[in-house]
């Protein structure tokens, strides 16, 4: 039986959704009978190949996030926005009502006890977006799984339903934004 190929990645997130996914614990063994992981922190594969399902944690806070997301969308048949940051920017989006220059100056120039104040400007660093934006503003998202983070049960349930070819539904009792 060919296995369903799954990729996961974190954009502007804290890896909390990935940590939550790891709480599937030994159920991962059964899961691996049916799915294989491509790009994911589990495999350390860095570039996503053509996949059946992509799970994205985190919103868009810099140019690199946008590039990775566009690449994911091209490679994945179904894309799932996982967690508060992917869905509405989450905690990083708390900077959205403050001008980006004010944020950078506060952190790198005017913060207490700073020596050699300098706003990082290495050309290798991805440039920040003015605001942290949800991923559905940039690409089509097939399914949304809210939570900060969603529980392992919810993540597994979503994955299994897509693998089974069912239209995933989050039970209303299980929707959580925190």
């Amino acid at each position, binding site marked *: 039986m060919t296995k369903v190929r799954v990729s996961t990645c974190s954009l502007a997130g804290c890896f909390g959704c990935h940590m939550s996914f790891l709480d599937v614990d030994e159920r991962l063994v059964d899961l691996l009978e049916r799915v294989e992981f491509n790009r994911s922190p589990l495999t350390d594969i860095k570039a996503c190949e053509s996949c059946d399902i992509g799970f994205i944690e985190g919103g868009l806070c810099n140019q690199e996030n946008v590039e990775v997301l566009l690449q994911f969308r091209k490679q994945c048949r179904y894309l799932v926005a996982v967690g508060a940051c992917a869905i509405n920017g989450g905690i990083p989006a708390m900077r*959205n*009502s403050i001008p980006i220059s004010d944020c950078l100056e506060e952190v790198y120039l005017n913060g207490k006890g700073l020596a050699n104040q300098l706003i990082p400007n290495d050309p290798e660093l991805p440039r920040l977006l003015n605001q942290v*934006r949800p991923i559905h503003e940039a690409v089509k998202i097939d399914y949304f799984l*809210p939570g900060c983070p969603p529980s392992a049960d919810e993540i597994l349930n979503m994955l299994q339903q897509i693998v089974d070819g069912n239209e995933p539904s989050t039970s209303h009792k299980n*929707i959580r934004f*925190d």
Partner: protein
Amino acid sequence: MSQVLTIDGKDLAFDSGDTLFDVAQAQGIYIPHLCHHPDYPPQGNCKLCTVDVDGQSKCACTTQAETGMSVQTDSTTLTEYRRALTELLFSEGNHHCPGCERSGNCQLQATAYAQGMTYSSFKLLNPQRQIDASHPSVLLDRDRCILCGLCVRASAQEGKHIFTIAGRGSDSTLAVNSDSGLLADTNLSAEDRATQVCPVGALMVKQQGFRIPIGQRIYDQGTIDDLGNRRPQYHSPKSKTARIAGDSDD
């Protein structure tokens, strides 16, 4: 002589002057609502209580019951309307649930769960709004205010007239009635109904934080349709043991 109308196929008697919301509530029929509380005059601000009356959409809280009306409180279309309204409320403010003390005790969040909202399909506006932390025991975080006007009505009814909604359209904002415009220069107290009645995390008693952990809060126990519109019980900032009563208007 009482009169009769139909709600969700049931014939119900009502008295003159009752609103559709009153009639449904007396029968234990839950109609989603955020800006209405039975202790205060209805204003029809949030439209969450929209019901179908003989094929027309009307606010249950501001519509007088009339003999012969046929009212439907629930349908796929009504849920879609209500979900869109809830998404709009999320898009209009800065609702960062994972960082909000009120998460789990918030009626806006609970309404979103009940309407099956998993994300907002409207652009998040991220408005810049002013926080008022000047008062020793009450915080006003306008980022989370949904302009329901309940604090305005509650404060007027307790004779203090501390709040008003100023501005128009998307510039509307909750204003404080003092020369400085700050809560510190009013006679508001943590015990006031005006402080307590806020359905979201905009007006909150300070120093509560995460005394009750996420996972054990009101809407972690059940849905708002089942539990009704509840508000948390606060610890009084004045004493370690005193509690300020929570409230339920379901």
